[in-house]
């Protein structure tokens, strides 16, 4: 059934594979890994963080993921070993406790950012980063994403705590974004989160992913369980025009759809207000937010086929990871502007706080009557 859907969901084209292979040959430093290599890396999440490790697994399984590379945690640890940075860390973190005020927490990051900004990278690493950057293409807008070690782990999701910079163009801008990612564990919200979990004294390790910025027609998130009822029989998809940040960040009422997991039947499609769009503006060379046109607000942003393709990918990713997932996806038109394909930007384990509401698998009215009666008796005294 899935294969009949006229929306591409495959891996990279031959041409794209070729350019990646060229980059791989040139790679010189162990600090940097191509995303496509992570799938075969042992304990990848320990060196590149769970977020990037999972993307590696998604690539290895044959799904489309933006091209890119990861600067692993050892580069960050090296930096943290730098005298100036270590001193700044000790000074800024002194007195940060569970009960620190918001002002105290907010004072940390600017100080760390200043020292990361002036940090001198080892020359070899610096050159490798330049090579890796150049391999992605001159003037290609990038997304620089933090990938913390321990993020999204079973007991701490850190969802949205760390930084992502979109629409970065050029090597210098990439480096600035990368330094900013490194300081993101020191943000007030990340510190508060760590404090609340008793994790303040543990060092936070950070890897950084640099990916080609997708230019989707539509993007959003998909859950392999219904997030409200916790039912596992349907995929929930939320979507908006342009980049998925409006959906993830709660900036819009997205289109909301539910799709049957077993038969990919569309159970519900509610058109949302889709108030604004975030997209890469070619003329200004950066990512901008703008108001959605009246027409785009009122129409569905996903066709049935597109919706089913997203749902199918989500179901398959749930199988691949062996647990409920939420997926950030983008529908990217191919180079010729033809049919869109589903590109996976991120996969997270869906944090399940409570047991899903069970669907009764058969109808037993008598059992239900007895349950109702005994409930009444126990509450009615």
């Amino acid at each position, binding site marked *: 059934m899935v294969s009949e859907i006229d929306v591409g969901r495959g891996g990279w084209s031959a041409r794209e594979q070729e350019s990646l292979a060229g980059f791989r040959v040139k790679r010189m430093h162990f600090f940097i890994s191509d995303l496509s290599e992570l799938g075969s890396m042992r304990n990848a999440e320990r060196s590149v963080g769970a977020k990037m490790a999972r993307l590696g697994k998604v690539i290895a399984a044959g799904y489309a993921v933006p091209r890119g590379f990861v600067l692993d945690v050892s580069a960050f640890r090296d930096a943290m070993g730098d005298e100036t940075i270590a001193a700044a860390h000790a000074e800024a973190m002194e007195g940060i406790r569970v009960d620190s005020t918001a002002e105290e927490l907010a004072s940390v990051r600017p100080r760390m950012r200043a020292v990361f900004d002036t940090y001198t990278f080892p020359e070899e690493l610096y050159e490798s980063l330049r090579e890796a950057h150049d391999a992605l293409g001159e003037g290609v807008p990038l997304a620089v994403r933090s990938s913390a070690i321990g993020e999204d782990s079973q007991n701490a999701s850190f969802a949205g705590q760390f930084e992502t910079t979109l629409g970065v163009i050029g090597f210098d801008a990439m480096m600035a974004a990368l330094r900013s990612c490194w300081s993101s564990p020191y943000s007030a919200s990340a510190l508060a989160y760590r404090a609340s979990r008793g994790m303040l004294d543990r060092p936070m390790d950070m890897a950084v992913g640099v990916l080609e910025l997708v230019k989707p027609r539509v993007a959003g998130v998909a859950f392999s369980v219904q997030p409200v*009822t916790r039912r596992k029989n349907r995929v929930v998809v939320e979507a908006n025009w342009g980049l998925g940040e409006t959906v993830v960040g709660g900036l819009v009422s997205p289109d909301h759809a539910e799709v049957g997991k077993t038969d990919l039947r569309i*159970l519900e499609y509610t058109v949302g207000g889709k108030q604004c769009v975030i997209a890469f503006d070619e003329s200004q060379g950066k990512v901008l937010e703008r108001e959605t046109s009246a027409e785009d607000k009122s129409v569905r942003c996903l066709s049935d086929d597109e919706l089913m393709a997203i749902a199918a990918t989500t179901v398959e990713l749930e199988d691949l990871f062996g647990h409920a997932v939420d997926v950030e996806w983008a529908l990217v038109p191919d180079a010729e502007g033809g049919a869109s394909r589903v590109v996976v930007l991120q996969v997270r384990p869906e944090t399940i706080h409570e047991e899903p509401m069970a*669907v009764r*698998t058969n109808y037993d*009215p*008598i059992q239900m*009557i007895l349950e109702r*009666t*005994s409930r*009444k008796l126990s509450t009615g005294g």
Partner: protein
Amino acid sequence: MPTVIPVYEFVSEDWYPGFRPGYTHAPWIAEPVGTFSARDEERFWFLDFHWPNGMTPMDYVIMEDAYVWGSQSAAQSLPLPFGKGLTARVAGTHLYGGEVPLDSPWEQDFRAQRFGRNLAPILTKFREIWETRVQELEEALLYLENEDLTDKPLNELGQFLIEARLFLKRAWEIHFELKYPLLDQYLSFHRICTDLGVDPAEVPKFLQGYDNKILETDRELWNLTNYARELGIENVFRTNEPENLFAALKVGGPKAEGWLKKFNSFLREYGHRTDGIADLSMAPWTEDPTPPLGTIKTFLQKGGTFDFDKAHQAAVDEREAAIVDARTKMAEDELDTFNQALQYTQETNFAWWNDEHCFWIDFRAHIPLRRACVAVAEAVGAARKDDTLFLFWPELMSLVRGEKKWSHMRWMAHTRRQYYQHWRAMRAWMPKMLGTIPEEVQDPILIETHGLHKHFLGAMRNADKRNEGVLTGIAASSGLVRGRARVLHSADELHRIQPGEILVCESTTTSWTLAFGKIGGCVCDIGGTLAHASIVSREYRLPCVVGVGTGTSQIRTGDEIEVDGSKGVVTVLKRSAA
């Protein structure tokens, strides 16, 4: 702090003149019928809307055999795990119902086990069981309705009375024996639908549009209306009041005669019914055809032809569309469960049975008893044919056995009729509830068909805080209508309704169905989404609000009111001048 409505006003061992406790002694299972005692204040009592006229002395049989024996025997034999059935108290001549509680938790469990086991065969073989029961009722009715009682000697009439009473009792055993399981099944279905994400307002739609004897009666009345128009005899209907119509038609020429022939064959099939449930004071249509003739008169007044089959088909279409729509939104595993539950529920369709059984039991099973009472009245030369209804059963028995003479009872019957009429006029002022209003009641019949759900009980506990002129209740059927209110206390006043008026009443029963073809909307003091008024309003696409509590006392006939059936709000826009 529980809300208590004092009962002291009604605490008495006296009742009708000549009544004393234990005067009648029909068997009972958990608790007999009685007058109010001071201790009854600790319990909860509700004015039962099924008997808006009050009870005659002979109606005591109805309370004993239909209400109390019927519900308590079903509660005992099923056995119900949440209560021992219903019991009744009288205040004036008005019946207040109450639950007989089941206090021992052990007994509740003990009964629940058996209830579970006994329910399965009843539900899975429901159609078969109901067919058998209908056959049983039909065979008995064939005898009881056709036996010629004219000129029968008193002792034979006495025998017939006993048979008629036995039949009444058996019919009401069947009534409760099936009503509890079916209703409980329906509640399970309702629950699973809402679990599956179905809008609760959609659930009743899945079960609507199945033909039943009550709808069939309606259809025939429309056919008779169209036939009268076809024959061009509307004038006879226009110029005569309902109560004179029969006589007028008889002398209305050959066309009217032809129409009456058709009407009479309608009465033979559908006329064995009263306009109220198990109410001996009401004459069945076969005895007095004023109600159906009055209905046909207003149908004619309404003008235009009403395509009954089209309206019925619309209900069917709406049902099928609602099912398709619900299925569309369900995942595959949910769909399996839903289909299973729907199929099960269509086989044990409470909504359908709730109408159908009225044709055989509620409107009909007491008619032989009334017929026998009338025959006795005629045999003893009573002034009025219903004089014997003002005797208690033991008195009637001594009359037919020749132990007492009518001349010794006549005065008593006369006095009691005055007592009855006095209290009948008091109906609108009777408290809707007495005693201690609970958070909730357990009996599903009381919750679903009497509308004594939590929301309503809560509203009653706060009744004095209500904003006058605005009543809130359950949104039972969507839509907005403004119009003149017609406050009715009994179904035998139905022919007074003018087309387009908004019916305001305590509650409706199946006998009120006829009104829905002409009213603009409906407001009921009590009821839930499954109440008769709610179901029929949806079928007729009329705005309806139920469970407003005090509509019949706050709204007067002639008031201009607005009914918002989507929000459950009724507003008095303008008071009538009168």
